[in-house]
């Protein structure tokens, strides 16, 4: 299971004076559901297009199962791409769209028909086979695009923002369906997305990218609980960041004093990251910080309280179970478990 299928090493690409990819190296394993996550313009789509063969990198190498991918023209790569816009052929029926890739492999008519029927059954579109893309809903089009990509049984399936064109409810459904399908067909998936919830809920591992650089590659849980840098800590989930000087048992922040944190190197600039759900409301005697309530938001199972703390610019967020028993303007005291915090350089 842990065999590396795709190995991207030192790939760089610039467009004019814009650096889209800067020395990107990622290993993707066989049968993995891998996500490339980052804000728009971070280079994730360029990386995808390099893999598909629509862009040629300036430097670096890409190997798929030991084969040099960059030497293959795009139509000879054992990789299929599901386009963000789906790119379904409007002049062909669903069936013909799905069969298109198989016809290029010069397979027999009967085999093509069987495999198309199979894959349409897998995505639940058997009864829509003769429809045109224009006659389908967004979710159905997405499934046609998926069927068209997996019917070729590629080694690697690339999905470019697969769910962004769908509305919220269909999106949640399709997340589950993609995951189920990935197990069923046993193809390695690489999904490009800017939506961290999507990446976190679907992927086995995620590469977080920013400005052409891979910031961290880790599982969703590790990204959240052990971010390696401020970008990842800030990008993944919500967090409270306190900037100061590291000491043996925390971070000393000007105006706030010593905030308890993990034990580590001292007297260097550091940022203490505390997740909102790790902060508790406590008695004054145990408090590490005191602030006043600016706003409370009740979101069903939990509430989020925004606090303003004298000497700290950004509002501090605290999540607690159920409804919060605080009112706006009230003064509250905060404490947290030092071992749950994350201390990052600078």
């Amino acid at each position: 299971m842990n065999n590396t299928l795709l190995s991207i090493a030192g790939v760089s690409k610039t467009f004019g004076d814009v650096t889209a990819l800067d020395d990107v190296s990622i290993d993707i394993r066989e049968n993995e559901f891998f996500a490339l996550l980052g804000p728009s313009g971070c280079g994730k789509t360029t990386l995808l297009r390099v893999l598909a063969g629509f862009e040629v990198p300036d430097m670096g190498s890409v190997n798929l199962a030991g084969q040099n991918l960059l030497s293959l023209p795009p139509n000879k790569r054992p990789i299929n791409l599901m386009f963000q816009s789906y790119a379904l052929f409007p002049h062909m029926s669903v069936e013909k769209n799905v069969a298109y890739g198989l016809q290029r492999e010069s397979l027999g008519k009967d085999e093509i028909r069987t495999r198309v029927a199979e894959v349409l059954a897998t995505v639940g579109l058997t009864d829509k086979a003769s429809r045109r893309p224009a006659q389908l809903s967004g979710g159905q089009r997405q499934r046609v695009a998926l069927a068209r990509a997996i019917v070729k049984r590629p080694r690697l399936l690339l999905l470019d923002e697969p769910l962004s064109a769908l509305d919220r409810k269909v999106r949640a459904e399709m997340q589950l369906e993609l995951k189920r399908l990935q197990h069923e067909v046993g193809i390695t998936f690489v999904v490009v997305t800017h939506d961290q919830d999507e990446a976190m809920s679907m992927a086995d591992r995620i590469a977080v990218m920013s400005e052409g650089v891979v910031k961290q590659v880790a599982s969703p849980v590790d990204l959240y609980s052990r971010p390696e840098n401020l970008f990842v800590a800030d990008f993944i989930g919500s967090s409270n960041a306190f900037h100061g000087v590291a000491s043996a048992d925390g971070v000393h922040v000007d105006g706030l004093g010593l905030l308890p944190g993990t034990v580590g190197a001292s007297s260097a600039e550091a940022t203490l990251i505390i997740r909102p759900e790790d902060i508790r409301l406590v008695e004054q005697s145990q408090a590490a910080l005191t602030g006043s309530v600016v706003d409370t938001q009740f979101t069903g199972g939990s509430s989020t309280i925004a606090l303003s703390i004298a000497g700290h610019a950004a509002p501090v967020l605290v999540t607690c179970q159920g409804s919060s028993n605080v009112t706006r303007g009230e003064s509250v005291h905060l404490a947290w478990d030092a071992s749950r915090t994350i201390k990052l350089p600078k």
Partner: protein
Amino acid sequence: MTSPAAQGRGAERRRALGARFVFLGPGLFYVTVFMAIPLLLVLSYAFLKRGRFGGVKMEFTLDNFHRVIESVYVSVIGNSILIAAITTVLALLIGYPTAYAIARLPRKWRNLALVLVVLPFWTNFLIRTYAWILLLNSEGPLNKGLMAVGILHEPLDLLYTRGAVVAGLLYAYLPLMILPIYASVERLDNSLIEAATNLGASRARAFFTVTLPLTLPGTMIGAIFVFVPSLGNFIVPELLGGGKTVMIGNLIRDQFLKARDWPFGAVLALIMVALLILLFAGQAAISRRINGRGRHA
């Protein structure tokens, strides 16, 4: 009886209808007065007897239609269709690659290229056609040039041939082929070509299975735009064909201005209108097939 809400909706619908007439009004007025009424006149003339000095006599007859199938007229119509068809095919072969190349140019060059394509339209059509006489003349630069480099020993009879007529028509209407094809190639979503490539199609295969079918409606518009005015043109056959090549356009003009047989001229004109309607209906049917139900080219 109706609820206030329904009344409100009714008023709103009336207002929307009113607004539509304000916008459509000028065009509708123009089309009615200058298109529909003359066309109805032409239609009615076709069923009347000719007047002695032009005009019509108010007597119903179908004789005008019978005359069309006389062999001399059939051959003129056949000849016209042949010349227009050759012109259209040549325009297609030159126009499609040109339009495709322009659509693939960097954005900043595209408009310049399009201006160059329509540039000839800024000069009078008659003058441009006269220029072709000079060009194709036995003393013209083409013959002289070919003789100077030793390819020819005596001048070719280029002028006053069917080939000259085709060349003149092709020159006149080529932009009408390029523009609609350009529009459809430019509008084509490039990710469709990438999708075809990603699914294993070579560049040529992607072109013939995706690009060509999806630009076919625009290409057919271009073909109609070249075929129809080529068929009806009477200036080019007269100037470059030297009166030896008679096309249906010349025939129609002669019926009205020389033979003073308005009813027969009307019948010939109606044949062209019918052909045009037929061609557009065919184009619409095919583009509907390509784009799927409910969408237009």
